[in-house]
């Protein structure tokens, strides 16, 4: 593990810890995010251990991809409007079924579930754009940088778009036998930025939670 990965794990762990210590102060959406970060940390640590011992941690990636999709979808179902909420909740079982089908028949449990992850990243990009639209339609009387939802959407949009580009680049460079360590460092840096943005979102959630819950928006 290099220093970027260590910092990444430290950020996730400390954010999850702070989140659990202030759990009751957070809105339901960010409580789910704190739980996701905790699961991410555990999965990363176990995955790395298994990766070292058995040289393959892909089964954890299959599990984590589904968990991440379910939790993020539940979060955004609370954030977004009723009509969109119904659509994304309705799609959830179908996506989970596709994840299972992908694991069993398409990519196998020992390879990275890129089919499922790429589709999920498209979903997350859409969630983030709709989340930004929600912020515009219902502005709060606090600055934008103090709103947890803004940082959450920013994290999602940056991570999803850069991950999409990363997979595209990886496929291109792989086919030209040009895959290098710089791309690995790039994706690790993106993971770290994602973790930092999510931490900022959780730390700022206390400011905006009271306004959103008073207005009846996402409980």
């Amino acid at each position, binding site marked *: 593990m290099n220093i970027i990965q260590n910092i990444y794990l430290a950020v996730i762990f400390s954010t999850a810890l702070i989140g659990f210590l202030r759990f009751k102060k957070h809105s339901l959406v960010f409580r789910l995010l704190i739980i996701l970060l905790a699961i991410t940390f555990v999965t990363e640590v176990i995955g790395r251990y298994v990766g070292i011992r058995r040289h393959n941690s892909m089964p954890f990636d299959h599990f984590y991809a589904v968990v991440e999709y379910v939790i993020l979808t539940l979060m955004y179902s609370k954030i977004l409007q009723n009509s969109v909420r119904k659509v994304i909740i309705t799609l959830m079982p179908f996506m989970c079924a596709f994840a299972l089908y992908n694991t069993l028949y398409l990519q196998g449990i020992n390879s990275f579930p890129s089919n499922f992850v790429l589709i999920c990243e498209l979903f997350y990009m859409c969630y983030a754009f709709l989340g930004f639209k929600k912020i515009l339609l219902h502005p709060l009387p606090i600055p934008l940088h103090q709103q947890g939802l803004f940082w959450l959407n920013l994290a999602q949009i940056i991570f999803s778009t850069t991950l999409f580009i990363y997979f595209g680049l990886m496929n291109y460079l792989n086919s030209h036998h040009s895959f*290098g360590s710089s791309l690995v460092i790039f994706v690790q840096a993106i993971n770290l930025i994602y973790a930092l943005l999510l931490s900022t979102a959780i730390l700022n959630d206390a400011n905006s939670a009271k306004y959103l819950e008073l207005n009846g928006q996402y409980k």
Partner: protein
Amino acid sequence: MANTNNEYVELYILIFSSVALFACLVGFIVYFVVLYQNKQLKNKQEQADLEANFRQEMLKAQIEVQEQTLTHISREIHDNITQVLSFVKLNLAMLGRQNAIPEIAENRDLVTQVINDLRALSKSLNFDYILKNGLKQTIETEVERINKSKIITATLSVEGERYALPEQSELVLFRIFQEALNNTLKYSGAQHFNIGLQYHPEMFNLSLYDDGCGFSPLEIGKNSGLGLKNMETRAALIGAKAAIDSAPGKGCSIKIALKLAEKKLHTDGRHQDRVG
């Protein structure tokens, strides 16, 4: 060498893609932030407007209730109290004819004075009377009443050719005059109270001045300054501007300026924002 070249190619592609991507993301974020701030400002302005409208509606309701109460009191004074006092006066007159006691005549005169004072008070409280006679005549009546009391010397000066103001404006201006007069009598210790009505073609001015002890506007506390605040808000309700100027030892001057073009919005009897 080939591997090194491939690494460079990979690096260039990576850098170019990253820069392009982040440029788009930064552009989107900046655009979103600007859009959000504009929206937030607009919302704040709308909220401020709503609050201002609410305050105005509350004030109109308050003034309406006050006018109704004053009219009710006026009618009670006229219908009940003065009637009873008239009977007392009549009985005293009959007693006076039977027993020639000087004190009876003196008390009869006192009762007559009370009846007259109550009738004058009743008129000043009743807005129908004010609207029927107009601002100038109503203030003239009040000036006569004040001068009879000999507490203070009041003078009325009228400039320009008199024209009729909208009914609601005249009512509000008269109430401001009454408020100012009450303050002068209660607090100023003034000897003179001057009232000026200036009828200009484009503007009407009501000026009120007393030569009392004056006050410092900064020292007027939150509770004791309500009368002054009331005058300003009543003036604003009819589209007029109130300027209150005073200093310790320098008396108090109140000027109400009503632009005749703006008054229509607030005092048209059919307008939803009408007073009363």
